[in-house]
């Protein structure tokens, strides 16, 4: 009963070109608004996720340093770092130096590493490190250097005969590495740890930094607590993201506030939907009452009404996905409007959205549409059939 095919109802309701044009405009504006919100959230999520990934890539899971500056891996430290919950660790000797170029010099952080253990923990490709150094990609780009070129580093003389003057040392560039973070790609350089110790004439195995990979990444905070309990008086342990903790917190807060502010855009788009619904209810009320008089039940019309609104929403959501793809291509890929990496901490920005983001934005827009659809339906139902027929056909 009351089986007027939906296609016939759609034909009756959307017969005029002006109605169709209005519908296309409504879907367009709704999908654009959804896409703008998703793109904004996606950029912020992308920033947070990429930053954390990149930090993990260069710091392992946990980093540590001695409270007194330098340390020697004694028995106690070695025993603790060989605990069950730790997968691997690597100690580092890092110092500030200057890279000397033809026109200018640049302050860099030279990290003396044990290539194998460091590479295993971070994923930074250290295989090419022989007797020279590894430089970051941004540094290489900026100074137009290539593998095999030489680079002079100036060390502050703190020992023996070089007191009071810089000690210059030329290195061959063995390779170029990427951290995924612009600042690190510009400032970090790597050298074999023993070579740096020899160069600085430090004691054997001297270190001032360490990185740890734990077995269960989810237990990072528990692992830090354990390490603090065992070695807390001498060392400071931090999760890999700690150096950007404030920035990450700011992004999180910004994400919430922006997504609230951006609801205004959805409201504007929803106003278009409201306009379309009012337009339909005004221009198609005649058809509605006529069909009811001929035997179409309210229930059937209600079903059609919510299918129509659901379709508007679904098409808008799908189209917003297409727009999102275009946004990401245009904003992140096209070279002439690509966001300059040096403005951001990350070398590259990405648009990352998780299912919750889609659920949040799509869900809110659906909620708005259903609310308006429900109110319109209530208004139509309030009118008696006779009253409606008389008013609409008078």
């Amino acid at each position, binding site marked *: *009963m*009351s*089986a*007027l*095919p939906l296609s*016939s109802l759609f*034909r*009756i309701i959307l*017969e*005029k070109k002006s109605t169709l044009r209005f519908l296309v405009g409504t879907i367009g504006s709704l999908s654009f608004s959804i896409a703008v919100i998703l793109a904004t959230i996606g950029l912020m999520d992308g920033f947070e996720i990429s930053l954390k990934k990149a930090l993990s890539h260069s710091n392992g899971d946990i980093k540590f340093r001695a409270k007194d500056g330098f340390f020697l891996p004694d028995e106690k430290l070695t025993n603790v770092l060989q605990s069950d919950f730790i997968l691997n660790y690597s100690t580092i000797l890092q110092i500030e130096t200057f890279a000397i170029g033809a026109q200018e010099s640049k302050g860099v952080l030279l990290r003396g590493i044990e290539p194998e253990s460091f590479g295993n923990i971070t994923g930074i490709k250290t295989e090419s490190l022989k007797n020279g150094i590894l430089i970051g990609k941004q540094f290489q780009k900026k100074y137009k250097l290539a593998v095999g070129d030489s680079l002079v580093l100036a060390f502050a003389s703190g020992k023996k005969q070089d007191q009071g003057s810089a000690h210059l040392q030329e290195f061959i560039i063995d390779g170029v590495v990427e951290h995924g973070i612009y600042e690190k790609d510009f400032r970090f350089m790597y050298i074999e740890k023993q070579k740096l110790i020899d160069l600085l004439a430090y004691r054997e195995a001297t270190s001032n930094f360490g990185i740890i990979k734990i077995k269960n990444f989810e237990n990072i905070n528990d692992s830090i607590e354990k390490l603090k309990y065992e070695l807390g008086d001498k060392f400071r342990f931090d999760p890999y993201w700690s150096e950007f903790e404030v920035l990450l917190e700011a992004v999180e807060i910004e994400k919430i506030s922006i997504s609230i502010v951006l609801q205004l855009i959805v409201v504007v788009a929803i106003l278009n939907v409201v306009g379309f619904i009012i337009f339909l209810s005004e221009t198609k009320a*005649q*058809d509605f009452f*006529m*069909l*009811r*008089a*001929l*035997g*179409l*039940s*309210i*229930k*059937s019309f209600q079903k059609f009404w919510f299918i129509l609104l659901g379709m508007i929403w679904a098409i808008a959501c799908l189209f917003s996905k297409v727009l999102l793809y275009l946004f990401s291509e245009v904003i992140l890929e096209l070279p002439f409007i690509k966001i300059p990496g040096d403005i951001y901490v990350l070398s590259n920005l990405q648009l990352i959205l998780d299912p919750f983001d889609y659920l949040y934005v799509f869900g809110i827009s659906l909620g708005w549409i259903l609310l308006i659809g429900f109110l319109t339906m209530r208004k139509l139902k309030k009118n*008696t*059939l*006779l009253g409606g*027929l008389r008013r609409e*056909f008078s």
Partner: protein
Amino acid sequence: MFIDVQNLEKSYGNTRVLRNLSFGVEKSKELVIVGSSGSGKSTLLYVLGALEKADKGKVIIDGVDISQLDDEQLARFRNEFIGFVFQFHFLLPSMNCLDNILLPAKIGGHKLQPVKRRVLEFAKILKVEHCLKKYPFEISGGEQQRINIIRAISLNPKLILCDEPTGNLDSKNTQTVVELLRGLSEKTNSTLLLVTHDVGVAESFSHKITIEDGQIIS
């Protein structure tokens, strides 16, 4: 009784439109309801046609108390039981005349072929075959009204209700439409109820009730 109206009351706000109305109509008979403008005759017809609910009283049609039906059941009742001829043709401009006529069949989920055959037969009788593929705005007022009548009887309803079906027609077309309605109701063995304020039309019916201020006066 095919139609049994008992103590029917209907008000709009403080205005009592129908006052304790009771009457009956035998199956396959015809009845004309006359009265001046605002007497309540159209409201009575709409209540009988399940387009409006009464405040009090009962309307029993072919044994079914329609005042007890819910919206879904009323919709089904309107579709299967009643053919309504409105004063204004109420044809949807987005569809051609045939599609307009077939709307009740489509709404009711009926098989279209038998209905189409019947519609073609009626269209021949009413001389509007040439209008079936046309849109309502492409045909004359008289033709629109005849299409309206075919739509009303397309599902062979047991009850044909007509609200001032000749209100917008000239005298020649009025005569034709009344004769057609009467002929079609005889042919389909249905009961015909017609509301009019046209004395000439009312005179041609064998059974008549007159309503004034919501009450039957004769």
